[in-house]
């Protein structure tokens, strides 16, 4: 009985909107790291900015698609600001700048100065910015519910089939977009830059411009992922901190960097196993460890997994081992 409930919970994670959101964030990271070799350690900052962009625009009366565009533009602008000074320098500088910039965004979100817009540490409540999204639904209106196998949700609402449908549709579009880009000569230039940017420069390509394009596109994936991430919940700055960035990195490395479906597979597997672990611990170790400790142990295991992945299977599940063998840098 308990087992089937745990398995259902894990199954639900496979298609959860959060899984889709992190898959999209990892697709953005894949454009950065997998294809271009850029170390973006602040993807959560892009996500938070996208979430704020969407939320604040909607609250001030923008229609859904405009709010979506504003969310994308926020990510693009953030990428431009971060990239302009750092992309001329060695890769490490981008990593340092992005990790601190993401923290700055979170701190600014929490700050009381902008409380009027961001809601401070409490954030933006879900009800305040989701109406335009839910009005878009063509599925039956609440409280109509629908079941698919063991999974049952309302058709339209926060944690609904509509949210799942929309989130995965966006992920699908992003995968197709990345496929179109990376099979092209443009994608080949990115891979060249990943290998050795001086060599590519010597062949007459404007390396800075390509790196900037990759950073902006990946950042826009990140901000859109942020929007997806908050659709079933509220915008809370502290829920989108460094740990979210590392979740996205784990997802990317688990699935396989520089692969097309790696981020999607990685995200599904990551969240299903993560849920399985936590639910299993909650049931199996009941009375031994408390619910909060389960969360902490879960987080700890994510860190250990990330380390083990990098050491023993750096190419991830879908990556090409042979390809990685030449990483002599």
């Amino acid at each position, binding site marked *: 009985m308990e087992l089937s409930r745990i398995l259902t919970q894990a199954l639900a994670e496979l298609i959860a909107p959060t899984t889709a959101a992190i898959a999209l964030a990892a697709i953005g990271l894949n454009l950065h790291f997998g294809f271009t070799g850029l170390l973006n350690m602040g993807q959560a900052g892009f996500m938070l900015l996208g979430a704020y962009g969407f939320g604040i625009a909607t609250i001030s009366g923008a229609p859904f698609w405009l709010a979506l565009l504003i969310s994308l533009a926020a990510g693009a602008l953030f990428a431009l600001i971060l990239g302009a000074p750092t992309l001329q320098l060695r890769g490490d500088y981008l990593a340092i700048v992005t990790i601190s910039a993401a923290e700055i965004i979170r701190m600014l979100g929490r700050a009381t100065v902008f409380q009027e817009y961001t809601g401070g540490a409490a954030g933006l409540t879900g009800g305040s910015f989701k109406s335009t999204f839910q009005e878009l639904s063509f599925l039956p209106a609440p409280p109509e519910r629908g079941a698919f196998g063991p999974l049952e949700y309302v058709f339209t609402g926060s944690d609904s089939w509509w949210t799942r449908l929309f989130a995965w549709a966006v992920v699908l579009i992003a995968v197709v*977009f990345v496929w*179109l*880009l990376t099979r*092209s*000569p*443009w*994608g*080949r*230039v990115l*891979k*060249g830059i*990943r*290998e*050795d940017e*001086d*060599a*590519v*420069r*010597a*062949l*007459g*390509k*404007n*390396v800075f411009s390509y790196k900037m*394009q990759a950073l902006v596109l990946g950042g826009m994936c990140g901000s859109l992922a942020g929007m997806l991430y908050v659709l079933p919940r509220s915008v809370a700055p502290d829920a989108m901190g460094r740990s979210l960035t590392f979740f996205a990195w784990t997802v990317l490395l688990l699935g396989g960097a520089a692969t097309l479906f790696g981020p999607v597979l990685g995200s599904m597997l990551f969240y299903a196993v993560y849920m399985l672990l936590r639910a299993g611990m909650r049931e199996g170790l009941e009375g031994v460890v408390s619910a909060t400790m389960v969360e902490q142990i879960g987080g700890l295991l994510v860190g250990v997994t990330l380390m083990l992945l990098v050491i023993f299977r750096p190419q991830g599940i879908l990556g090409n081992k*042979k*390809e*990685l*063998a*030449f*990483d*002599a840098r």
Partner: protein
Amino acid sequence: MPDETTENKVTEVSDVPEATDVPESTVEALDTVERSDTEAAKAAEHVLAAVEPTVGVSKPDPILVVDDVQRRFGGMTAVDVDHLEVQRGVITALIGPNGAGKTTFFNLLTGFDKPNQGSWAFEGKPLGGVSAAKVARNGMVRTFQLTKALSRLTVLQNMLLAAMGNPGENLFGSLVKPLWAGTEKKNTEKALEILARFKLDAKKDDFAGSLSGGQRKLLEMARALMTDPTMIMLDEPMAGVNPALVQSLLHHIQALRDDGMTVLFVEHDMHAVRHISDWVVVMAEGKIVAEGPPKSVMQDQAVVDAYLGAHHDTDLGDDSLLDPAVLARLEAEEEKR
């Protein structure tokens, strides 16, 4: 054209060919290299025969003119070139002992470093302060001393990457395959043709990272050719290459000239340049100390001094060095230089 035996070694370096034609050392390998007797080679020799072998001499048809270029690192002047002209369509070797500033000078010319002062013009167009990518787009393409093969790209991808003006390299153009499929096909044909010339066509689908050091040098040269350069700049093409491959590399360099390109290459080994270059420029301590045809420039006193030191034949164990008068004379000589 290179003969069959030397060419085969490009792909079969690990094989053991007949003992008789395996050069034991690089010097031996170089001695067996013959100057190609094509029209281009003869024309190059002929046109340069009339040029006076003095530093900064003007050439009949210079493709690159350098004026007063200086690069300082702190108090050290790494490059200080007053005037240099590089003749079009010939192989010019830039030699000098280690630390002479050859590679720094190279980096300046190709936009990988910025000089403290000076200007230079390539085909009449000033290139000072122009970015490395633009320099390459203007037709001056370089290779690197430490080979930069793009390891996790296949050999063919390495080649295709180098092609210029592909509409698919534009972000928006890349999304629509029909826009670039034609260019890609044409480039692939051209790439395979060049790869065949370098005997790398069998390796086209291998990752560049799996090639041997010498093959990477060849790939880098082939890749540079994909850009249709007017002038090709090779930074120590022979460094770290096994003797068997050196011969074939030298043949390839001569073939570049015979195809109408201008070649400027850096080398610190005097032997390497003697056989194939049409003109030699010698650098020492950042300055150009001599230039001229390979045969005569090696006899130049300034070159001998640069390589061996001005007092290389002075016996340090000689008791006469203890004589203050002799020391004073030597010091005076040193001052004059």
